[in-house]
């Protein structure tokens, strides 16, 4: 078995003054899609922010390709090939759609993703490439947020609640695009409230409960009962 691309061990992380993650351990293999589920407040977003460097932790708690990155700044983490699609999308309002994508690619990491390829994936963005990002619908903004992360040509893509607040038909469009995104060997971690969606796109799943791992398993074999038990702590 090869080395994991991301290995988290004994991570204690804090959200403001509250401890949000307790002694958390998990790993992601190269090219693997891992889903993270859990109730609100379980620590999913704190986990995403910790891995991406927005929350800084003990160096050894997070290892990426064997390197201790837990204490690095977000820009240093990004330069190593980890990109986050943040919860709430958080586009740059004074930048146009295309400028949002270009700023995502400003590190010029080599890889398959380019403006042309993003526009091929989400054609509506090409039509609207010159409008301010604030003028887009929620679904289109989410496409920009995903495109912006892909422009960095990451080796590990973190997706935090990408279906939050979107219409089902838009969610389907975005999830239909996922296999095409990860087919070239990019690893991904998907935080998702919709358990069925999370299980359908991932190969393994972690369920967090109150900052701890309550369940870990292969997505195609975990049972609804086991998830319900992990979700609610029963």
């Amino acid at each position, binding site marked *: 078995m090869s080395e994991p691309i991301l290995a988290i061990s004994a991570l204690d992380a804090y959200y403001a003054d509250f401890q949000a993650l307790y002694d958390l351990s998990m790993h992601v293999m190269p090219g693997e899609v891992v889903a993270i589920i859990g109730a609100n407040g379980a620590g999913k977003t704190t986990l995403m922010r910790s891995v991406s460097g927005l929350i800084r932790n003990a160096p050894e708690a997070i290892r990426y390709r064997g390197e201790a990155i837990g204490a690095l700044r977000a820009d*240093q983490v990004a330069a190593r090939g980890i990109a986050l699609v943040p919860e709430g999308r958080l586009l740059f309002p004074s930048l146009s759609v295309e400028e949002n994508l270009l*700023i995502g690619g400003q*590190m010029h990491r080599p890889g398959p993703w380019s403006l042309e390829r993003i526009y091929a994936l989400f054609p509506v963005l090409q039509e609207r490439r010159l409008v301010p990002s604030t003028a887009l619908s929620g679904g289109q903004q989410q496409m920009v947020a995903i495109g912006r992360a892909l422009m960095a040509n990451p080796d590990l893509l973190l997706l935090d609640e990408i279906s939050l607040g979107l219409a089902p038909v838009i969610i389907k469009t975005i999830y239909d695009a996922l296999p095409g995104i990860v087919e070239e060997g990019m690893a991904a971690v998907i935080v998702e409230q919709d358990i069925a969606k999370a299980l359908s796109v991932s190969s393994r799943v972690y369920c967090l409960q109150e900052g701890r791992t309550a369940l870990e398993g292969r997505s195609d074999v975990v049972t609804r009962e086991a998830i319900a038990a992990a979700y609610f702590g029963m």
Partner: protein
Amino acid sequence: MDWINAIVQGTLLGGLYALFAAGLSLIFGVMRLVNIAHGDLIVLAAYLGLSVSTVLGIHPLVALALVVPIMAALGYGLQRGILNRTLGDDLLPPLLVTFGLSVILQNGLLEIYSADPQKLQAGAIETASLQLGSLALGYLPLLMFACSVAIIAGLQWMFYRTALGRAFRATSDRQDVAQLMGLNRAHVFGLAMALALAVTAVAGVFLGIRTSFDPSIGGGRLIFGFEAVIIGGLGNIWGTLAGGVVLGISQSIGAEINPGWQVLAGHVVFLAIIALRPRGLFPRMD
């Protein structure tokens, strides 16, 4: 004719005020930093121009080739060494620190150069002028105005058309998300301050050629810069030029009415504009 002359001379003076304002506007726009020491940095640039041109025996405009990079380097170091540490949710620390910096700069200049007024000698070009009917347009004010417009145009282009400008705008929008894109905020802010002080270097040398200066005049230049920014509308680079011109014309018309009213007239017009249009003449659309 005197009135037309006053308006034309005021417009040319306004170019200089726009340069005072451009640096202020840039750093406020990118990092929400109000730099109280900005006027003293303009005066510092004028003294640097003086030292460089006298030590090397070169024309003050040629001295810009050294003063601009020195001020830019100083700006980067100042931002990374001191000012970045003051930035956060609270507006007060950067105000206090730049106020302190202003005091240090004034006293430092006083110690080194004394309180005697100085002037940069630009030679024959200072008195040469273009005769247009009964209007006499000095070549030097014309050249400075052209440079100011070119610098403002360059800043506008940089801000909206280049990768650096994109990085400035993204960091200004959302600092933490910009960090996720691989932009180190501390470095981006350093670059913004470097650019602002490069513009300030030009402003300081132009000021020193145009009029005599001493270590105490920074505060007044800061006020003119602020007024130009506010009149033009925050966040609008071309508006800053318009604001500078409005201020310059107001001052020269005031001086035409009564020589003692020059500065006062500028302040009165500034107050009238913020009373009638609190967001300035050309606020950024949003």
